[in-house]
């Protein structure tokens, strides 16, 4: 097993500074600097993602989207590259706007909420392996860290909803608390399958386990992948699960009363969270930075690091793109349907997934099946159970859609 992939980015950073200036960076400074780097990365990626979202929306709705702000050459090159700096301009506008705190708010939670949501997001990014040896810190509780820290997001939304002292905000906060708590459960249970297969919680170990199995985990745990993806859309409050901030009914839900930079922080966190869940999905289910059809070198090679990082971003972007596609394609789900879907379908199915993964682990460890073998076996088991469910006439997984 190539040990070098578990080096942390902080270590690289220390080595780099030592190499360049001959001085060592004290340990205590590394983490703050790394967090600042993540914050910068989040801001940058969110700017691009917001622009991308608008372009995708425009494509789906037969429009052109933002065209004016940005390099003229790009806009002339193709309508899909126009307006690249539009979000940057928007961000500057939001930065210089006045911060309005309505008079009847509860000021401390009102101000703490946007700070908390961004903090949580930055902290969660600590364990994401952007490439081989490129996670800020490869904690040995990696996946659990992401899940547990992200669970505080709902707290920020509840705080925002309550402290705004407005009924739309309150309703938005209530809905989001219910929704995010409910969908956290299938999300975690869907992740348990791959954790079982990998035999560990560290993110880099997860990637290496997929190399060892010879197949990415979305094959042996297909159901888990789908459940994780659906549940994570609900976790980041994106359409079709955007009930907490539904514009048409709740103005903007918990962000109704926010303006200026505080609004921007919520916006930033939404896109950063979207990137976060997609990068977790890419790491856990799609092999992370593993380059298809290419062995991981035994020694650290800058070329492989660059290639791996590129592959990781490609996979994550693909998942992000699908999320955008879904957003502009599906209508909003009704709240009771949402709860039904989460508790009556996704949760039991995620237990089924855990069971299948346990079987797969046995096949791999005891019967020494290779990646293709276990994938086929697990898909077979899945199809068998779903057929069985059809035969035994328990409520079908789509029954809730017909009972409108």
């Amino acid at each position: 097993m190539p040990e070098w992939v578990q080096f942390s980015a902080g270590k690289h950073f220390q080595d780099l500074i030592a190499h360049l200036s001959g001085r060592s960076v004290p340990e205590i400074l590394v983490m703050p600097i790394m967090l600042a780097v993540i914050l910068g990365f989040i801001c940058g990626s969110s700017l691009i993602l917001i622009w991308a979202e608008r372009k995708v929306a425009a494509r789906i709705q037969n429009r052109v989207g933002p065209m004016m702000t940005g390099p003229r050459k790009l806009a002339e090159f193709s309508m899909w590259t126009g307006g690249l700096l539009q979000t940057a301009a928007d961000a500057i506008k939001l930065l210089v706007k006045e911060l309005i705190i309505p008079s009847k708010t509860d000021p401390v939670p009102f101000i703490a909420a946007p700070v908390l949501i961004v903090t949580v997001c930055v902290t969660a990014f600590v364990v994401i392996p952007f490439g081989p040896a490129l996670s800020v810190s490869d904690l040995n509780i990696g996946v659990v860290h992401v899940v547990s820290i992200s669970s505080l997001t709902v707290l920020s939304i509840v705080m925002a909803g309550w402290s705004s002292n407005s009924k739309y905000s309150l309703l938005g906060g209530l809905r989001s608390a219910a929704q995010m708590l409910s969908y956290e459960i299938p999300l975690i249970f869907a992740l348990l399958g791959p954790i079982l297969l990998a035999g560990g919680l560290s993110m880099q170990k997860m990637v290496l386990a997929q190399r060892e199995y010879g197949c990415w985990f979305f094959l042996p745990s297909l159901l888990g992948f789908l459940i994780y993806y659906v549940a994570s859309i609900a976790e980041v409050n994106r359409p079709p699960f955007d009930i907490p901030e539904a514009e048409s009914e709740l103005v903007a839900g918990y962000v109704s009363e926010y303006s200026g930079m505080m609004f921007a922080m919520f916006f930033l966190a939404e896109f950063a969270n979207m990137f976060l869940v997609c990068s977790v999905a890419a790491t856990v289910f799609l092999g992370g930075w593993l380059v298809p059809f290419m062995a991981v070198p035994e020694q650290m090679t800058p070329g492989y690091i660059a290639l791996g990082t590129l592959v990781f971003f490609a996979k994550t972007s693909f998942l992000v793109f699908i999320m955008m596609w879904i957003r502009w394609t599906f209508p909003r789900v009704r709240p009771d349907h949402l709860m039904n879907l989460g508790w009556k379908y996704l949760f039991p199915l995620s237990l089924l997934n855990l069971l299948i993964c346990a079987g797969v682990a046995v096949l791999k460890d005891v019967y020494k099946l290779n990646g293709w073998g276990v994938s086929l076996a697990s898909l077979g088991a899945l199809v068998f159970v779903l057929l069985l469910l059809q035969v035994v006439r328990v409520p079908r997984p789509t029954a809730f859609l017909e009972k409108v």
Partner: protein
Amino acid sequence: MSEAIAFYVLSGLVLASAWSVVRNENLFHAGLSLILCFVGVAGIYVNLDAPFLGAMQVLIYAGAIAVLLLFGFMLTHDLMNAKQERNQHAAGIFAAVLMALVLIGTIAGAQWYGSSGQPVKFGVESLARRYMQQDLVSFEVVALLLLASLMGAVVIARKEEGSRD
């Protein structure tokens, strides 16, 4: 050294937020302080080399239970705005001081069995091994306990007959 500093900072945070939970007039603020307290305890766990326990503390207590608590508060608007009655000050202070004296006395004179004073490295694997081997029976009984409480919760929260679905 840095661990000691972290411990004292976290303990201060936990104590201050716990105090705020008890003394805060505003229920919502009390709930938020409770979450801060939970997060502080999670920090202490991490400081004691038990990061998994810390993560679980955040996930279960701060992220789920306390948020459900706030959720409940938000649904009962009258409760949120009502000033709480405090008519048992003397009894409460008496009980608290008595308990504190007993505990401080006990802790001061406590001998801890077989402790080296160093945190034990306790990974997720050893935790899992303990659940699946030594404490298997307890683990299975927990499953029953959860099943029973799930069912009980449904019974308590059920709707009246006729308004099913």
